[in-house]
């Protein structure tokens, strides 16, 4: 397809990979944190809550910079992960995924938490009387009932990841084929006079992908709702 340059295409593919990875990998943690915030009480709960929201509050550039300081190869966590397990984020697509995941995390957690809070505790109690431990109650009652919330959280995270720019470029910069996501490419084209044409093409690709995901999630959610209402 010569409608887009090969470089642009590789940005599209990379963005998809980054967004999907960011969403899927952070989902379990998101569910866990949302559950903790919704149902448990523990010291430091408000600190955790604040931490989760931080990427929403901070300008993306600052988040990116903090990521660089923490997860860069010279950073405490980044250095440790590199040495112990060979996990490197700096200048890798994994770093872009990390940045996207961090930026999307507050949205994901909030959506999931909201659905957890809407689950009738009476049903969880019923499951407990039937012999289900807290973990099983969660897995067999709470989790299936919050699927719409998880779906919402995931789709918000995916969309956010598709559009994330500031933190990503600050953290992993823009290496074509490795860390150049769609938004970085779009940004670059917008910086030069006359670059709007290509930028718009990329924007359209990005929108098309996200809209497809959105539509799919709506269909899925409708099916879930229908199952619950029993028809």
């Amino acid at each position, binding site marked *: 397809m010569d409608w887009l340059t090969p470089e642009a295409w590789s940005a599209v593919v990379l963005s998809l990979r980054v967004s999907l990875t960011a969403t899927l990998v952070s989902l379990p943690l998101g569910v866990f944190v949302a559950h903790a915030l919704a149902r448990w009480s523990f010291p430091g709960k408000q600190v955790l809550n604040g931490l989760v929201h931080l990427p929403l509050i901070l300008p993306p550039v600052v988040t990116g910079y903090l990521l660089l300081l923490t997860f860069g190869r010279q950073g405490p966590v980044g250095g440790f992960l590199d040495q112990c397990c060979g996990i490197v984020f700096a200048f890798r697509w994994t770093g872009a995924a990390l940045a996207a995941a961090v930026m999307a995390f507050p949205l994901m957690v909030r959506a999931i938490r909201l659905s957890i809070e809407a689950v009738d505790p*009476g049903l969880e*109690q019923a499951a407990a009387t039937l*012999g*289900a431990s*807290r973990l*099983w109650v969660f897995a067999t009652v709470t989790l*299936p009932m919050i699927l719409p919330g998880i779906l919402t959280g995931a789709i918000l995270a995916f969309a956010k990841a598709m559009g994330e720019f500031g933190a990503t470029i600050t953290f992993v910069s823009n290496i074509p084929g490795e860390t150049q996501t769609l938004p970085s490419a779009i940004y670059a084209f917008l910086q030069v006079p006359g670059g709007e044409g290509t930028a718009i093409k990329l924007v359209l690709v990005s929108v098309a992908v996200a809209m497809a995901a959105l539509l799919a999630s709506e269909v899925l959610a409708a099916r879930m709702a229908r199952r619950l209402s*029993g028809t």
Partner: protein
Amino acid sequence: MSLEVAVRHRFPGFALDVAFTAPDGVTALFGRSGSGKTSVVNAVAGLLRPDAGRVVARGEALVDTGARLWRAPHRRRIGYVFQEARLFPHLSVRQNLLYGRWFARHGGDGPEFDHVVDLLGLAPLLSRRPATLSGGERQRVSIGRAILSRPRLLLMDEPLAALDEARRAEILPYLERVRDEAGIPILYVSHSVSEVARLATTVIVLDEGRVLRAGAAEDVLSDPFSAASAGIRGVGAVITGRIDTHHSDGLTELSTSSAQIFLPRVAAAVGAEIRVRIEAQDVTLSLTRPEGISALNILPCEITDIRRGEGPGVLVRLRSGADTLLARITQRSAERMGLARGTACHAVIKTVSVAPEDIGRRG
């Protein structure tokens, strides 16, 4: 000693302070709306953490605030039929029913799925989801779910309230069998005297969060005062007898301590001991032995007590052999007949006035 309960708990505006011991069999919790029945059941289930108290089931402590002991609900092995069904909306009826099985890895076969489904009439609903069930259907699934979880203790909070009488009549004998065969103690909340009289060995009457009266079902249900305060109209007494013959015309002949009586066919073997509840209002008293009358059961008695009940009636306590009977008649009749303590008379009881749900095997 099957179940010991002693709990104290304060809600804003309501104080629960209840202590009772429930032997094996069915213990009925009676009491007016808001008297604390569900709260007691919740404390046993572990859904209410009492301010202070102790719950011991079959020798095993479930809560003991003094010893800081607390067993989580899922480790109590209880089957709880909630007042409001609480089915899992995301699971089919079949999955709801089997939910407890998942976690019931401990021994014992437990009741058979197919049998419970048949009994509760759930076969056509198995693949449906709770949202589309009718009120009674939901309640039946909830009963099945609790029973199928192979509990060690059944808690039933008005399990039959949403059901029609025919369906109740089908389920009651089954609960009786659960009680007898599986030997599972049952804590049973109900407003229906006949249900309770049939099932319960023990009756606890609650009033405003306290135990008003506790004791053997026979005693409590025969006591017009405790019964009335529990909102019960149908005062009655329970007599016991042994089955002699099953007649071909559908009647079962029974020998009680004072006479032979006839009941609609009882589903128990010859020789079995059964309990029959006879409502005080169904007993007619006659000074002479009446003849040419459709009532088959005429028991010779002696009056041991006469009390004014509520309204224009008096409650007459009778001894008939070793059994106690209660009769509720109008004050007018009592005066006209000159009844007094010690008067000998006949209690006339229609066979058909003993409803099937008032006959139970001795639990």
